[in-house]
């Protein structure tokens, strides 16, 4: 990649540097605002996040780099069928609404730090709590790895190779680690405010500029009907089944992301959390839908791109735009800033959550007398250690291993039945809840891994995700198992 192909000039790089410096300053301010050296202060911001910070940290965390890059590419390839993304981004918030009110109350009453703290408190099984943590850690490690890979690509593309892929990954990882270990969730949430604002403004401006350039919605739809009539076709039965299955699996799996749960714990009061969710319900309208629309515009204006090329459709259109109107260079800078903001806000939250699960759920039970100050320090070292492990992996591992990423939500959703039953159904028993989770996880892995090695095992039996069938099995085990065990007289 030649430096001449850089997407941003000196001015753009100066803006990026200013943005990174601002993140470090916010991290330092988070440290200064520290109230005590406790796990709750470090991992949950002292359970004191107000409405504005809470809203933007929920927003910046839910929307990753995939929203800006992957969603437009998918809309380019799949047309209107990809509107499922708008539905599942709203579904995630709707699903969280079902369990957040009670989980928030219990977390404040009983001092939960992680998702597993609820499982231990409710089911009194250290094994179950540890398994939930391990499942969350595996899913989030994948998330961090893919986002690190994306950030390296973004840095290399933006600078035309002046900053290599590896340098980009290392440099930005260190920035994330510094502000995260300075002030924990408080710093991360404050940086999320900046990142959330950049992300929202970026999506709106990019949408507006592209819409204006390509003759508004009527111009776009006319061009689409002429050049890509296939995008308008009604769904086939098979496509609809995939739509429904994707909607359910992603809605349930993303709703239970460990770092999203920790934001529920971190809300200062229930009413602020409620209002934040009410606003969050409408955010896909201003983020996901806009980026899908950008993908459709790309399909109408630059048809015929292969899969890899279609992933860069937004950047390609912005490149053409600035070639025609150099004054529009600021939009490219804004887009890149939004990409960095979306990726970094996801990585920092996921990393902090992994660190909390290792410290609180896996290490603390082995050493219960360790003071919280030391545990917090240990958690910071764990963050640095994890990043030292993941950065080389992100740089060196081939893209082919990323099939595993696709099943992360299918794995995470297996904890949802135990969470919902545990919160609201008094009769649920530990054994069936644990076995439901284990069987659900096992069946998900069987379909996901098996389909890579044998044609006899489909990844989507009857057109639905393996994880969805596993979820049904999981629910049946928890429900029927708890009912049967409850009916058994205790002296038998």
């Amino acid at each position: 990649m030649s430096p001449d192909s850089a997407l941003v000039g000196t001015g753009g790089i100066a803006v990026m540097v200013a943005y990174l410096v601002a993140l470090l300053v916010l991290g330092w301010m988070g440290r200064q605002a520290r109230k005590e050296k406790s796990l709750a202060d470090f991992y949950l911001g002292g359970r004191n996040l107000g409405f504005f910070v809470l809203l933007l940290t929920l927003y910046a965390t839910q929307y990753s780099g995939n929203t800006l890059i992957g969603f437009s590419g998918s809309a380019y390839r799949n047309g209107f069928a990809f509107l499922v993304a708008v539905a599942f981004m709203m579904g995630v918030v709707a699903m969280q609404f079902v369990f957040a009110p009670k989980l928030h109350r219990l977390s404040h009453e009983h001092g939960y730090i992680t998702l597993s703290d609820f499982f231990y408190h409710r089911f009194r099984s250290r094994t179950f709590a540890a398994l939930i943590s391990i499942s969350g850690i595996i899913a989030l490690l994948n998330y961090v790895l893919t986002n690190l890979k994306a950030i390296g690509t973004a840095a290399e593309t933006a600078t035309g190779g002046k900053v290599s892929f590896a340098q980009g990954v290392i440099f930005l990882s260190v920035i994330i680690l510094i502000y995260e270990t300075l002030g924990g969730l408080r710093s991360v949430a404050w940086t999320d405010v900046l990142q959330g604002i950049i992300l929202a403004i970026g999506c709106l401006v990019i949408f507006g500029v592209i819409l204006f350039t390509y003759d508004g919605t009527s111009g776009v739809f006319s061009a689409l009907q002429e050049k890509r009539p296939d995008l308008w076709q009604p769904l086939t039965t098979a496509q609809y089944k995939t739509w429904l299955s994707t909607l359910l699996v992603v809605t349930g799996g993303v709703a239970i992301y460990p770092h999203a749960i920790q934001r529920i714990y971190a809300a200062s009061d229930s009413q602020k959390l409620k209002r934040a969710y009410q606003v969050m319900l409408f955010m896909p309208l201003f983020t996901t839908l806009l980026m899908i629309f950008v993908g459709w515009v790309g399909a109408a204006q630059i048809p015929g791109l292969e899969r890899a090329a279609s992933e860069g459709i937004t950047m390609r259109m912005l490149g053409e735009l600035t070639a025609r109107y150099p004054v529009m260079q600021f939009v490219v800078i804004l887009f890149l800033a939004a990409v960095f903001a979306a990726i970094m806000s996801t990585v920092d939250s996921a990393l902090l959550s992994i660190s909390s699960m290792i410290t609180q759920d896996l290490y603390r039970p082995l050493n219960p007398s360790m003071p919280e100050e030391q545990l917090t320090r240990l958690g910071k070292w764990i963050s640095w250690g994890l990043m030292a492990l993941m950065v080389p992996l992100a740089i060196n591992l081939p893209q082919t291993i990323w099939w595993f990423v696709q099943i992360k939500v299918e794995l995470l959703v297996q904890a949802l039945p135990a969470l919902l039953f545990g919160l609201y159904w008094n009769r649920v028993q530990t054994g069936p809840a644990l076995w439901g989770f284990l069987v659900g996880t096992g069946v998900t892995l069987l379909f996901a891994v098996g389909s890579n090695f044998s044609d006899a095992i489909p990844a989507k039996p009857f057109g639905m995700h393996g994880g969805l069938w596993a979820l049904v099995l999981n629910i049946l085990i928890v429900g029927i198992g708890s009912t049967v065990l409850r009916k058994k007289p205790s002296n038998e």
Partner: protein
Amino acid sequence: MPLRILLLVLALLFLCTPFWAVGDTGIMAGLPRWVIYLVMVCVFFPAAVSFLVQRNWEALAQAGDSEKETEG
């Protein structure tokens, strides 16, 4: 109550899928039907769930008292 809310949310999610236009019916072959779909998913769904949130948040926070029943 929580079960009713969960089922309502799932029902709303289902309503906001294009189940009414699957196959070769041609119902969704033109732009206006997709606009209707967009209105359903982008306006009706969040507005309906937001209403549910407003009405049921407190009740959900207090629903059940599960921990007393836990058996290992």
